[in-house]
């Protein structure tokens, strides 16, 4: 291929000659002579294939993408940690302002005030929703954020026992277990009673009690009671919370949470097959200096003008190396920006109204399923998810729905074999009465 056909590579043959001459060598190979010859000989990339012009690339990628069923063409009742919500048009337009997405971590604050201020505003919005004192500028996702929270709790309390509610997302339990293998934490999972975390817990020597709010099965936990159980035993209460639900639910901070984490994906971030999403991490003030990740703080410049900087960096790996509170370096700043834009567009009452609409939609679906004769499991106060027992393998229900162009809820047998007839169903503000009625009709037609 002619060298000019690589549109991302500006070097002309003349440039190459001029540059080599300035350096004083004959060819680029002269610059690579310190690399052992045997390595250079074996470094073939033959399996990578030929370069693709843009039109060919788009054709190839579109073909792959079109092999997937997506939630813009098929109604989806899947939630379980990743949600199909509205995404204001204005969000994507602002996100494509490329001064944001082509920048890196704001190490030079004078030319990064836009990003820094956006993160400061994100931190503020997360604190407002969660009722916590301090939030960082994002983590990888809600679940690794939760695993990091167990590290913080263990470091703070100097205890290695981590007690996790059985009603936490199964993938979160798995990730917490894997993370525990690093510092050698002991993870115990509690029983679920009637769809909720039991308050009859032995938290002796526990660093923390980890709960989810609303929990994996969609139920709203009694956080105040769980906070009391944890605090009476000298443990921290760690809450993983859907931030959209906090538009209407009492905040974890007000109910006694010491650490609140979660995923801001519900604020317009595409599901994108599970990532990238946007973890958040918020704490009470006493834990501020133990937070993982980047923190943005307000300050002034030499003229006394307000400005923003990365702060309290003595916690971080690039300063403290092996003494850092976490190894996290990059975060999900761009998705935190996306969430901030969506939260701004929705605003103070929009977010509450959207949360209520989710509840109303899920409520309608739950009542309709009950009216059609299906059993709702562990019914009680919920947000936008609930569990139905179909009496047959829920995988079959899911496949039957798929055959009719509907992406059904999550067959719980995916994670728990004893629940294989149950389905976790989610109905967000995007689901219409027609779609919900269609779901029930299709399920009703199963033999």
């Amino acid at each position, binding site marked *: *291929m002619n060298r000019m056909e*690589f549109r*991302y*590579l500006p070097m002309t043959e003349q440039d190459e000659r*001029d*540059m*080599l001459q*300035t*350096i004083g060598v004959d060819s680029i190979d002269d610059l*690579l*002579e310190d690399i052992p010859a045997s*390595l250079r000989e074996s*470094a073939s990339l033959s399996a*990578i294939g*030929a*370069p693709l012009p843009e039109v060919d*690339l788009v054709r190839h990628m579109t073909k792959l993408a079109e092999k997937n*069923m*997506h939630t813009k063409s098929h109604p989806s009742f899947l939630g379980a940690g990743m949600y199909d919500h*509205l995404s204001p048009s*204005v969000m994507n337009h*602002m996100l494509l302002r*490329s001064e944001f*997405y082509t*920048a*890196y971590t704001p190490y*030079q604050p004078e030319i*990064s*005030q*836009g990003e820094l*201020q956006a993160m400061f505003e994100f931190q503020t919005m997360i604190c407002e929703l969660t009722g916590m004192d301090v*939030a960082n500028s994002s983590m990888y*996702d809600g679940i690794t954020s939760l695993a990091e929270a167990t590290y913080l709790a263990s470091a703070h309390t100097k205890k290695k026992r981590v007690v996790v509610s059985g009603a936490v997302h199964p993938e979160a339990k798995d*990730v917490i277990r*894997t993370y525990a293998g690093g510092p050698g934490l002991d993870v115990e999972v509690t029983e679920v009673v009637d769809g909720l975390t039991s308050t009859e817990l032995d938290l002796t020597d526990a660093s923390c009690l980890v709960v989810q709010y609303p929990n994996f099965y969609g139920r709203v936990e009694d956080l105040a009671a769980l906070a009391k159980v944890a605090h009476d035993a000298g443990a921290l209460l760690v809450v993983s919370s859907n931030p959209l639900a906090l*538009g209407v639910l009492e905040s974890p901070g007000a109910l006694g949470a010491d650490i609140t984490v979660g995923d801001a994906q519900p604020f317009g971030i595409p*599901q*994108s*097959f*599970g990532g990238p999403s946007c973890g958040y991490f918020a704490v009470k003030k006493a834990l501020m200096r133990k937070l993982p990740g980047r923190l943005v703080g*307000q*300050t*002034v410049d030499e003229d006394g*003008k307000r*400005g923003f900087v990365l702060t309290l960096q003595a916690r971080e*790996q*690039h300063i403290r*190396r*092996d003494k*850092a509170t976490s190894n996290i*370096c990059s*975060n999900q*700043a761009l998705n935190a920006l996306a969430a901030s834009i969506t939260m701004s*567009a*929705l*605003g*103070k009452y929009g977010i509450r109204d959207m949360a209520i609409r989710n509840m*109303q939609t899920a409520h*309608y679906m739950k009542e309709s399923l009950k009216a059609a004769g299906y059993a709702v499991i562990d019914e009680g106060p919920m947000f936008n998810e609930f569990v139905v027992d179909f009496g047959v393998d829920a995988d079959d229900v899911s496949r039957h729905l798929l055959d009719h162009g509907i992406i059904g809820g999550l067959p719980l047998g995916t994670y728990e074999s004893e629940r294989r007839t149950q389905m976790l169903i989610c109905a967000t503000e995007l689901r219409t009465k027609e779609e*919900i009625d269609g779901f029930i009709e299709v399920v009703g037609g199963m033999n």
Partner: protein
Amino acid sequence: MQHEQTLIFEVSRAGRTGYNLPTPTVPEVDLESLLPASMIRTQVAELPEVSELDVVRHYTSLSTRNHGVDSGFYPLGSCTMKYNPKVNEDMARLPGFAHIHPLQPIESVQGALEMMVDLQEKLAEITGMDEVTLQPAAGAHGEWTGLMLIKAFHHHNGDVQRTKVLVPDSAHGTNPASAVVAGFETVTVKSDERGLVDLDDLKAKVGEDTAALMLTNPNTLGLFEADILEISKVVHEAGGKLYYDGANSNAILGIARPGDMGFDVVHLNLHKTFTGPHGGGGPGSGPVGVKRDLIPYLPTPIVRKADSGYTLDYDRPQSIGRIKPFYGNFGINVRAYSYIKTMGAEGLTRVSREAVLNANYMFARLKDAFDVPYDTYCKHEFVLSGKRQKALGVRTLDIAKRLLDFGYHPPTIYFPLNVEECIMVEPTETESKETLDAFCDAMLQIVKEAEENPEIVQTAPHTTVVKRLDETLAARKPVLKYEHRQPSSIN
């Protein structure tokens, strides 16, 4: 003096909104009948009340106060701030990629899994490894994952005494931090007068307690570890594993493969080498590749091609377990895949060769004006020392701030730690000779200013929207959120 930028909360006016919910189709039930009063918020979250145009003006204004690769040259060493192709953004936003749920029935996401398998195979080829997982969210997450794999391997072999990870003094800060989070102790290996791993020091420190050596190659000085085959032999003979920090892999595509160098585990930063945009700090993606003997320990699930189609394999009894929900930062992986397909084998090889040429060209133009700790051909990046300027009262920090006045993002400064007043420059291959020349001219002018008019450098920047910021104040009296004066009640 330019105006002070308002916060979105300061733009807020009661009664404004920037979005409408869809037309309701289900019955509107009172909140009180859906939720007990004790569960309902008593104090409304103080989010802003703004119109859609307010949102647009605010974030547009913020964007103009930010420097990205699209704004201008960004030679931030070890960060590979190359051009982020626009078509990749479009590809990641195709509805069939952006709007698929990770728990959909497997037959409804075959295209996504096919892309993942193809990307895994391509990354395995590029790195010379046997198997790749796309799950780690970022470089540091990949490091930690790789070390957990190594730990599982040693424990499986009964080598529980391998508790130490060797890390060169020039390593990225994430290396020692990841090692500690994975439950290891770190041992620092010195650099020698060449700026490379001191083989004698390595031999003295490696032993029966060695779990692994973490190495970046080329290292953070931009120098290729020429003794890599010997280093590999020393570590392996002691029973340790070799970990490759892929942050600097923009230098080696099609030139040398970590697998051939002897590395057992590799992570790549798809947001660096493979053009996933840096996003102001993320999201990134940090796939990990391993040699055959470490495959059993890879995190679950593994994406595979089977006779019946593409599948997710969870039946992996020796796996370290799940390290992230679902399957990694898929959206970033789509962008990287799109880039690899665009460049092909020939393009990728040219990427690294031209990145190396660009760095050496800049080094040749700048090395006489600065102190040079290691005067040898570099790879994709190089380091200068501002010692000479410091003697004139101009610190490396001042030089960096002065570069802002010329419209550049400065290089990485004060890293690696083993070079005094360090300036670490990585131009990347996507920058033209004119850009490199203009930047070098600016650097040389600043050097001249440091000699003739140091104050202009010491008091820089002069043209930015804010001047130097008081970082001490920010840390001493942390203000980490906007304080609303009058909280509203829920009604």
